[in-house]
């Protein structure tokens, strides 16, 4: 075999384990889900193979599903904005702190050592009827009856922000680490205030990190079903809960497949649009 042929093959040899894993664990199951979504669940509870558009018709036209899709996207958007607003200053602080960056980053990672479900459930101990906040309010005599603070949309968003904030902070932090501190000094020496220098130089240069963190937060929160299950009320279901309900509770795999492909399609389309306007390529233009 010639040297050139060997060099051409080398990347494929190195990629083959990853390609095999992705192929078997992602594309093959996805293919089955696509096939399933065209099957039909009969009244007897058996799945009938074939090419039926009933599930898709239901997923696309039923206003119940449409409304939940919109509220899912709304919750995801609010969560993303909240993560950006809360996460950016924290990331800036860590990136610009003189010592102990490693410790601060470790503190940021610390929540990942505890299961996401347990972290979500911990809010019950804080905001629940017999939780810490109510205990303080009752003991201080501010209220005589415990207040029900859980099981509504704001607590779902709270739980999501709690879960997703580190992803945002890490992404912004990495971007800020790449922004030379002397750029702000240079801007100030030219006459801009610290705030103007931040707005003109540091913020635009860290946007790729903010965009990446935002995308991650949005996709992860739009696809979640644990948080609304634990912290949401009966009317706070998100789209992934519908999939869960269809597949696990009703055992209606064809409908669940169509619904999950629906969510995948909508999120995929949003990612493409997002990438077009805020994509890395767009932002890095001119950076060579």
């Amino acid at each position, binding site marked *: 075999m010639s040297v050139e042929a060997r060099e051409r093959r080398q990347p494929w040899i190195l990629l083959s384990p990853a390609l095999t894993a992705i192929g078997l664990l992602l594309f093959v199951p996805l293919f089955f889900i696509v096939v399933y979504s065209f099957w039909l669940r009969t009244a007897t509870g058996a799945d009938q193979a074939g090419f039926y558009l009933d599930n898709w018709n239901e997923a696309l036209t039923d206003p119940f599903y449409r409304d939940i899709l919109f509220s899912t996207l709304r919750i995801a958007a609010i969560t993303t904005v909240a993560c950006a607003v809360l996460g950016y200053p924290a990331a800036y602080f860590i990136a610009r702190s003189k010592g102990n960056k490693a410790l601060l980053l470790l503190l940021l990672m610390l929540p990942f050592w505890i299961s996401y479900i347990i972290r979500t459930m911990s809010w019950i101990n804080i905001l629940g009827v017999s939780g810490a906040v109510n205990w303080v309010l009752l003991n201080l005599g501010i209220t005589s009856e415990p207040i029900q603070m859980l099981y509504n949309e704001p607590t779902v968003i709270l739980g999501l922000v709690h879960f997703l904030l580190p992803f945002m902070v890490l992404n912004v932090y990495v971007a800020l680490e790449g922004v030379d501190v002397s750029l702000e000094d240079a801007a100030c020496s*030219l*006459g*801009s205030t610290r705030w103007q220098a931040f707005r003109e130089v540091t913020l635009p240069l860290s946007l790729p990190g903010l965009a990446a963190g935002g995308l991650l937060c949005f996709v992860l929160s739009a696809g979640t079903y644990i948080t609304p299950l634990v912290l949401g009320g009966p009317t706070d279901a998100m789209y992934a809960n519908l999939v869960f309900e269809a597949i696990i509770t009703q055992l209606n795999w064809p409908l669940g497949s169509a619904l999950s492909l629906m969510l995948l399609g909508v999120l995929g389309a949003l990612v493409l649009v997002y990438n077009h306007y805020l994509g890395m390529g767009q932002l890095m233009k001119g950076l060579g």
Partner: protein
Amino acid sequence: MGAVSLTDIVKRFGSFTAVQRMSMDIPEGSFVTLLGPSGCGKTTTLRMIAGLIDPSEGEITIKGKRVNDVPIHKRNLGLVFQNYALFPHKTIAQNVAFGLKYRDLSKADMDRKVRDVLDLVQLPHVADRYPKQLSGGQQQRIALARAIVIEPDVLLLDEPLSALDANLREDMRVELKRIQHRIGITTVFVTHDQSEALAMSDRVVVMSDGRIEQVGTPEDVYNTPASEFVSRFLGISNILSATSKGANAGGLSLELPVFGQITVPKEKAPHVEGAGPVKLVIRAEKLLLTDLSAPRDERAAFDGVVEAVDYQGQAARYFVRVGDQQLQAINMIDERPFQEGETVSVRFRPRDCAALPGAPS
């Protein structure tokens, strides 16, 4: 009072004192270099003038106005960094115009100033490019253009040439001096590179351990070092221990082991008072090696043996032993360099030497 003056400036970082009670006056329009090894406090001093850090004690004035409490963006300074610090997301024209936005100017005036300064740095054609598309030397010129276009009171340069490769650095040295001369701006230049300092400055401030060792013209600090540190830091010097016998009509009379009696002119020993131990400084290039048969001149001559040769092309650095003293000599090469083990005549003029008080460290 100078364009910039520092009075009793002290800067402490925790328990570490970076700058220890420093005072200096920088005359209007002059090119002053802060020269010293890393950690000597030169960059800290520059950053205090810039307003990037605050002095712990003392007063800084720019054009007669106290600026201790004036924030950096109101000091009207041009600052050029070692890594250029160009804004990567802005075009060259936007980079250069950045400081002009904060000065009430019409769009036409701004465009004209940007064009003029790009002409001045000889890069009129790069306005629409991004910094990453320029070479290091070009980025350096743009950084300079961005700093001077705002017509600052003082131009502060923090090791601006050290990221460039050797040949480009020498070209930029000439270029920078040309531009500084053209616009006549007061300039403070920080470097650890002695050849930059000697080539560019009107005055050199040699610093070590947060203190000023010597202030003077490049010739002053090179030929008449005020301390052993300065003589060791600039060029290559031989520092010999000697004993002063006191001044006479011809100058300062010194007694040395091996070399015997030598008289150094008084102006080459401004800090030596009376008799006692002194250091005799002989620059390596003032020590001439010749064949033993070469005719004698006014130089004192001693026999020595070449112990090592550091060949440099047009010149060579020799390590030569005279008696029990090892000396360094840098000589231009005539026909062929001397060889290791060769016996040569080692010669120098006493008036080329300088004397410093105290025994060598």
